């Protein structure tokens, strides 16, 4: 089959931060510490991810991991992605800064999620899996995986958080266009979904529930396997094509950023741009500020606890140490569904815990205003998630002293907002309210998280 010619700036390897910082390999509590109710007697141990993919999350031996040829051919269809200087935005802000942005929205799936979806579908297809099952928040991951599954001739089932599905049902049509089966979560297809609906028929859903349902659904068929779109080290690894390209594109302009800004769901677009820049800054013996921008409705880094927590409602996945608001926390239904996961991934969490990554929480009104400004000045409408990154970047730039040398900032526009026009229209019409955390719900969830950690306490045994 003819392949798209590869641009010389297309990375041929993924950048593996675990080589530089092996301490970032995820830490998990042995399940034997859990109470009997969640031990699942008779439960078999089975790989969900193909072995060669799963081991990428533990690899501390290789700084660069080769991208399979088949995946490179697919990357070549839309990569390198553009890196541009936001000159008009700089002018509008009267910024003492040179602002560069990397734009990941110019592919069919509309976001950075395609970078890992193609890689994962490649490994799953090669391992003989027939159907990939997943949970999605904003729907960008579901769209990307639906397309990747179509490319590799795999079935695809997506459990989509109800609140977001109802905000932008047209994205579901994109998933279905590629042959995916899309279910609203909570659903009546799984035991945990039925239980959630029984407790609250109007439950808005969470990423933890959608992920839990996907895990439970995948377990019902020997030919299906669960896949995840963020948080895992391997997923962040696949996204490092973003940062590597940015380094090369900035070098052509004689630039290296002082500061890198990206939004934070569980960490994949953030890691994708930040990790290679961190490695490159260390190689050059210079500092780089890494700023993760989260939703004020789901402020896990700024208000969460760095503790062991469940990542899904089923509770069968590893219990890793993460910044979390507690797995029972139900964030308000903000438009940035991709930022509603109750915890950051283990790698992003470890980077925040050791001070490598700063965190900032942004309200959705501020984010939409920043997204509108970016659109008006740069001609690109960012996804609501990416608009948080823009808002965070504007905050960083506005605090930079006038008398100092201009700050060089790199911000990741992880996806387009063309399927979020309804939300932007509501914002423009003044119909979107600021969303605040319900302090009572947050406090209850954090208490439950702390109690859970007391029940499994024996830190020496954690790895």
């Amino acid at each position, binding site marked *: 089959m003819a392949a798209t010619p590869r641009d010389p700036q297309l990375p041929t390897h993924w950048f593996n931060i675990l080589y530089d910082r092996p301490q970032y390999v*995820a830490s*998990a*509590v*042995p*399940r*034997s*510490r*859990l109470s009997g109710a969640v*031990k*699942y*007697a*008779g*439960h*078999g*141990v*089975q*790989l*969900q*991810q*193909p*072995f*060669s*993919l*799963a*081991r990428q*999350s*533990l690899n501390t031996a290789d700084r660069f991991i080769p991208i399979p040829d088949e995946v490179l051919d697919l990357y070549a269809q839309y990569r390198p992605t553009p890196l541009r200087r936001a000159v008009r935005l700089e002018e509008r802000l009267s910024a003492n800064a040179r602002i560069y942005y990397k734009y990941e929205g110019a592919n069919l799936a509309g976001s950075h999620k395609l970078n890992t979806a193609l890689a994962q579908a490649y*490994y799953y297809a*090669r*391992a*003989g*899996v027939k159907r990939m099952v997943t949970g999605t928040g904003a729907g960008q991951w579901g769209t990307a995986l639906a397309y990747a599954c179509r490319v590799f001739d795999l079935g695809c089932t997506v459990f989509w958080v109800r609140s977001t599905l109802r905000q932008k049902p047209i994205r579901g049509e994109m998933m279905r266009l590629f042959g995916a089966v899309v279910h609203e979560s909570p659903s009546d297809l799984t035991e945990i979904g039925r239980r959630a609906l029984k407790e609250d028929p109007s439950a808005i859903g969470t990423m933890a529930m959608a992920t839990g349902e996907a895990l439970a659904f995948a377990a019902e068929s*020997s030919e299906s*396997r669960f896949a995840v779109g963020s948080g895992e080290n391997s997923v962040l690894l696949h996204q490092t094509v973003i940062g590597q390209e940015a380094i090369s594109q900035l070098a052509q302009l004689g630039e290296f950023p002082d500061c890198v800004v990206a939004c934070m769901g569980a960490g994949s677009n953030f890691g994708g741009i930040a990790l290679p820049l961190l490695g490159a800054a260390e190689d050059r013996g210079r500092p780089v500020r890494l700023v993760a921008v989260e939703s004020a409705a789901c402020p896990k880094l700024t208000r969460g606890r760095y503790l062991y927590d469940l990542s899904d409602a089923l509770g*069968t*996945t*590893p*219990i*890793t140490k993460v910044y979390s608001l507690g797995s029972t926390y139900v964030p308000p239904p903000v438009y940035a569904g991709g930022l509603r996961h109750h915890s950051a991934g283990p790698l992003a969490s470890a980077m925040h815990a050791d001070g490598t990554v700063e965190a900032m929480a942004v309200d959705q009104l501020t984010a939409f205003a920043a997204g509108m400004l970016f659109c008006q000045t740069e001609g690109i409408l960012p996804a609501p998630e990416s608009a948080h990154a823009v808002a965070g970047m504007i905050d960083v730039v506005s605090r930079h002293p006038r008398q100092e040398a201009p700050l060089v900032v790199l911000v990741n526009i992880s996806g387009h907002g063309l399927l979020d026009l309804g939300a932007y229209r509501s914002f423009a019409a003044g119909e979107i309210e600021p969303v605040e955390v319900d302090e009572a719900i947050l406090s209850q969830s954090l208490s439950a998280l702390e109690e859970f950690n007391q029940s499994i306490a*024996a830190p*020496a*045994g*954690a*790895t």
Partner: protein
Amino acid sequence: MATGESSEVAARPNLDRRRVTSLVFEALTAVTPGMRVEELDERQELYADLGLDSLRFVRLLVELESTLGVNLEDEELMTVELVTVADLVDLVERISLLSAK
């Protein structure tokens, strides 16, 4: 499943069940801090009794790959479902037999 060369396995193509069990016990303790070989027996459940989640299972496979000197292949591992330690011993026995061929 096992396609790599193994110094240990190649030298000892007829790994007996006892030796395989011992290798499995060692690998389990290597990936589970605080676990001792004396605490293990083949009837224990990997998930419910030993707390072997997917992260630790992958670590265990990496450990066994290194111990046995083999390359584990995705396609065959994907079909494996293990409940007890004995199931794991069976798997490793199969791997060692294949690699010895």
